[in-house]
């Protein structure tokens, strides 16, 4: 039955790119409300595709509005809500 389930769920810490020395590259899920970040890296291709198709691109600046219960952020004129599984796969600086 579940053949067409996407494999988007295996994102986690193991996929995290190496942190640079001063630790400025962080997953979106760790940003606090009011913090800004630039989308740097989305290592998981499935997540990347999802994000790209929503019109969110590497280099975009986002502003985090909420972290709980889900991450809410703004890019340009739009607001999006991602669950933590997705948000932890998006790395910003």
């Amino acid at each position, binding site marked *: *039955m*579940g*053949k*067409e*389930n*996407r494999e*988007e*769920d295996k994102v986690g810490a193991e996929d995290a790119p190496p942190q640079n020395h001063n630790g400025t590259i962080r997953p979106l899920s760790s940003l606090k409300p009011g913090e800004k970040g630039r989308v740097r890296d989305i290592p998981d*291709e499935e*997540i*990347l*595709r*999802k994000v*790209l*198709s*929503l*019109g*969110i*691109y*590497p280099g975009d600046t986002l502003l985090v*509005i*909420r972290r*709980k*219960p*889900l991450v*809410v952020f703004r*890019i*340009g*004129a*739009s*607001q*999006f*809500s*991602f*669950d933590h*599984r*997705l948000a932890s796969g998006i790395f910003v600086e």
Partner: protein
Amino acid sequence: MNSPAAGLLGPTTIEHQPPELFAGRDGILLIGSPNVGKSSLFNALTGTYVTVSNYPGTTVGISLGRMKLDFGSGKEHIKVADPPGLYSLLPLTEEERVARRAIFASNAHCILHVVDSKNLPRQLPLTLRLLEAGYPVILVLNLWDEFEELGYQLDVTALSSRLGIPVVCTVATKGIGIEELKKAIAKIFSHGKFQPKKMPWHKSLVELFDQVAGEIPEERLPAHLHARIAAILVLEGDDRLAKFLGLDPETLKKHRARARHLAAQAFSIFAPLFYKHVADNLLQGIFREPGDRKPQLRERISRALCNPLIGFPALLVVLYFGFYQFVGQFGAGTVVGWLEEDVFGAYINPFLNQVAHQTLPWEWLQKLFVGDYGVLTLGITYAIAIVLPVVFFFFLVFSMVEDSGYFPRLAMLVDKGFKRIGLNGRAVIPMVLGLGCDTMATMTTRTLETRKERFLATFLLSLAIPCSAQLGIIMALLGSRGLNVWLAYLGVILLILFVVGWVGSKILPGQAASFYMELPPLRLPKLTNVLRKSFARMRWYFAEVVPLFLAASVILWALDLSGGLAALERGMRPLMGILGLPGDAAESFLIGFFRRDFGAAGLFKLAKENPQGAMSTPQIFVASVTLTLFVPCVAQFMMMIKERGAKFAFVSLGLVTILAFATGALLNAFLTAVPIF
């Protein structure tokens, strides 16, 4: 083909050529992502009304309308098609697939790409893809008022000349820019064939595209899909399309590796970035975003609603006033009471009775119209006096909440809870809509991302979500028995919903898809839109419900006359005994299959009209729970077959029946042992 869209609404197979959208090249197609006001534009253009909503994912079918166009030589009607929103040409959800198929099947004279002006930089890449595919496109910059208010700037003329297509600014909800748009459309009709726009791909990539395009068997290629675009999409990882086109997976793998090599990264990433880059270059120097601004009131309310501490109480307020007070008390109580007793009971039905007895010679024929199961006295009366007001008031509230943009925020709030039952927040819409009409809700489950979620949601709808007509009547039944009975009912149904959902999520393979959703700005619902939308939904409901009510009446009448009904009821009486119900309740369960609400309505009558042997509170309680859980109505069952397949529908039917009666029997046993009511 009488209904070109019908084929596109069917189940999800892409393994057949989609039918062409228009009979001749006499139509236009509206394309755009959710929340850009596409449906409002459709309404502004066509004058007729379809659903316009502030929730991503409520337009699941393709709406078709007609508009009058002035060609200078005279006015003519052309067709307008409005498929669901899509973010990109690589679909993630079923509705995006429906929209994309509409594009590929489109022999439209032109495509209106509708964008939210403020989000032009993020939506222009899709315009470029459409142009690259050779579709004649008009770019519609909608929500232009918000754009200007917020301080954005754009040189529209420059954009138009850089793209080489007409660009029109509109405010669809206010009718601004519509005339200009119509002129642009009329002009395109006299235009010759459009040439695909060249994109600045590297030469080696273009060679690869053409090589892949050359491998696509011509008969497999959708009539209105440029082979090179198909090639780009399959290289980007569109396996469904590749399968549909009959491409060899092994060769394709090699091509994808080659594309990755040429692009120096996965082509599925390179391509979107490429289009975005081209779009950014196009907007260079002519588009300006305003700086940061302080959040305004609307934004502050929006943020508050995302806060569980405010969002959930807000939900309770909406449920209490909107649904309980307005739909339940006023709609299902006051209005239904007035229609049923004062209008139908006192005037219409006695009159019909009299007429029937005077004009129809045989009793059996009289009974067909005005008997216990008469088409008029049962079918029409139930449909109009009991069900119609409840459903209408429900849709009114639902549409208002929907247009405000509250649902995406609710989806976000309930996501964590829903994940425990194998769904994600996105499923909140089918679930809430199910409280209005489960059949309609079953149709919208196709917006859910994974098969697992679609199956679970469909099943839970058929089991534990009572539709508004049913709920209204059950409210009336339980309401008179005290708040504790009502709460117990709610508790049992919710418990079953969660337990069955949880077990289902463990049994079915896979996981709920990750939740992501755009939160559209909160907007004050426009009353005319809300009313028109409610009427449109009513029309849909009515076209579907009245024939079933009539059919149910006729079948019951025939069964009654032939003695079949009595036999069936006798057969079901022992079952009623297990539930501790009077044997007469069997009738409600029997007709409940024709419509859930129908069965509940029968129960309502039984409880009211039977003063000497009136049902006790535990009986009412058990009957309400069992009837809520019991089989969906015929219409919902048909929709389940259509959306999920016959096998799933019949298995669900069996499971639902077992679960309903098992729960009823358990409750009865429990209440007999522990008389809490």
